[in-house]
Structures are given as C-alpha cells and as structure tokens.
C-alpha cells in the first residue's frame, strides 16, 4: 500500500467489514444480521478498490449487495416474525467452546500470516479495469463464462421448482396418491397377518 489515501481506505473498510461480520453473526434479529452482511459486503467492495480490482468492486456492489442481500431481506420478510429464532436453548457451554476453538484457530492462522509481505510490483495498464478483465475473461475463460450462465439458468429453474408450492389440483392428486399408498400397505399387512394366523 503506497499512498496514505489508499491506506486510510483500507483501514476504514477493514473496520467496517469486521464490524459487519460480527453483527451478522451475533444479531438476535435476522434483519439486523442481513444489514450487517450488507455492511460487510459494501466494505469489501471498497477494499477491492485498493487492490486494483475496479470491475470486481462494481460487480460486488451490483450482484452481492444489490441482489443477494435483497434476496435475503425478501425471504426474511416472507417468513415473517418466526425468522427470529431465540438463540437460547443450545447449551451455552457448547457454543462457548465452539467459539473458543474457532477463535484459537483463527488467531493461530492470522499470527502466521500477518508479517508476510511481498515486493510491490507495478500493475500493468488496464489491470482490473473493464477492458483488461473483460479481455482476459472472454479470451481465456470464455467457456467457463458460458457454463456459469447455464448454471444461473439451472439455479433459477431449481429455485422455482423447489419453492413453487402446490396448486389445488396437485394437492388433491398428492392426497389421493397418499391415500392409495396407505390402502395398499394396510391391505398387504392384513394379508400377511392372515397368512401367519
């Protein structure tokens, strides 16, 4: 990090990112957790700017902050007040030890990493910009790009299929099917009882 503005941006974004992450994980109300996630995502978007990844910063704001978090908020709204489950009940000792061990592992990893540094290599022209990343993407990764489009279509169809719910006709069909299965099972068990007796 060379210049003071870029360092300042990093520090501010880091503080907000960690604050947002902790808010996500510790909030009692689910909507507050979603807002913490939003803060974390926007802060990381700002941090991508210090890494010369301008297009990805914009995409992060468009896709993550603008679509994924909105999706979470819609689901929280659809589920309603039950979305806030009470965090009591799971044994406090269990959660405390889980938190402790995760904290120890994270601290060990972080302490090993914090002093690593590398020589500052100048970035080439068009690094991380729309032209640079776009050329690299379409020239080097065109096939994965098309496959990801297909993945998104499949995800849309899958989400509709899973969350669709049943029309009254389908619900009636399902009920009839289940009644049939039950009748068959009852008839079979009556037969086997007859055979034994």
């Amino acid at each position, binding site marked *: *990090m060379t210049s003071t503005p870029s360092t300042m941006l990093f520090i501010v974004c880091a503080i907000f990112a*960690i604050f947002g992450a902790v808010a*996500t*994980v*510790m909030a009692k109300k*689910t909507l507050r*957790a*979603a807002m913490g*996630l939003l803060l974390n*995502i926007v802060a*990381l978007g700002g941090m*991508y700017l210090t*890494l*010369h*990844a301008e*297009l*990805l910063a914009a*995409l992060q704001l468009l*896709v*993550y902050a603008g*679509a*994924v978090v909105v*999706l*979470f908020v819609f*689901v929280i709204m659809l*589920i309603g007040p*039950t979305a*806030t489950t009470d*965090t009591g009940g*799971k044994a406090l000792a269990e959660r405390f030890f*889980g*938190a402790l061990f*995760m*904290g120890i*592992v*994270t601290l060990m*990893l*972080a302490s090993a*990493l*914090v002093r690593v*540094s*590398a020589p*500052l*290599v*100048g970035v080439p022209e068009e690094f*991380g910009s729309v032209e*640079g*990343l776009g050329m*690299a*993407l379409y020239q*080097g*990764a065109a096939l994965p790009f098309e496959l*990801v489009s297909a993945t*998104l279509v499949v995800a*849309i169809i*899958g*989400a509709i299929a*899973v*969350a669709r*719910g049943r029309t009254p006709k389908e619900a009636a069909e399902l009920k009839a099917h289940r009644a049939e299965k039950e009748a068959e099972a009852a008839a079979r068990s009556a037969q086997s009882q007859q055979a034994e007796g």
Partner: protein
Amino acid sequence: METFDVGIYATLATVLFGIGALGFLVRRNLLVQLMSIELMLNSVNLLLLAFNRMHPGNHDGQIFAFFVIAVAAAEAAVGLAIVIAYYRLKKTIDSDRLER
C-alpha cells in the same frame, strides 16, 4: 524497496472467514447460517484478489473471484428456495429441529 503487505489482507481474510465459520457453527437460525456462508465466500474473494495484486501478470485471481461471485449468487438463490419450502412445510427455520 516498497512492499505490498499481502499479509495484512490475508489476515483480514482469515479473520472474516473465522467469523463466518463461527456464525455457521454456533447459530441455529438457517438464514443466519446462509449469511455466514456468504461471509466465508467473500473472505475467499478478498484473498484471491490480494494474491492477484501480488502477481499482476495475469488476471487469474480476478477471473476466479468473478466466478465465485456468480456461483455464490446461484447457491444463495437455491438455498433460500429450500428454506422457504421447508418453512412452508414445518413452520420453523431452526436448524436444531430439522427433521423429515
């Protein structure tokens, strides 16, 4: 010689990943668990971009992060659809009480 403190970015990514993993393991609310998964994915994106800044000869890290964003969005959509379908059936999103 000027240095690029990749270690600071890696440490921040580690801390964010740890917070996300902690949230996933400790919280019982399915939605908060899904949000913790998004936190972990974001931390990995940060790490990828930091490493790409270290070796700016090609765009591989940024391309990878691009695909991580796309696939994470698809996964969030499907996961939330499952949560809605399950809630419609069982009227709860408590992961301790998941059952058939």
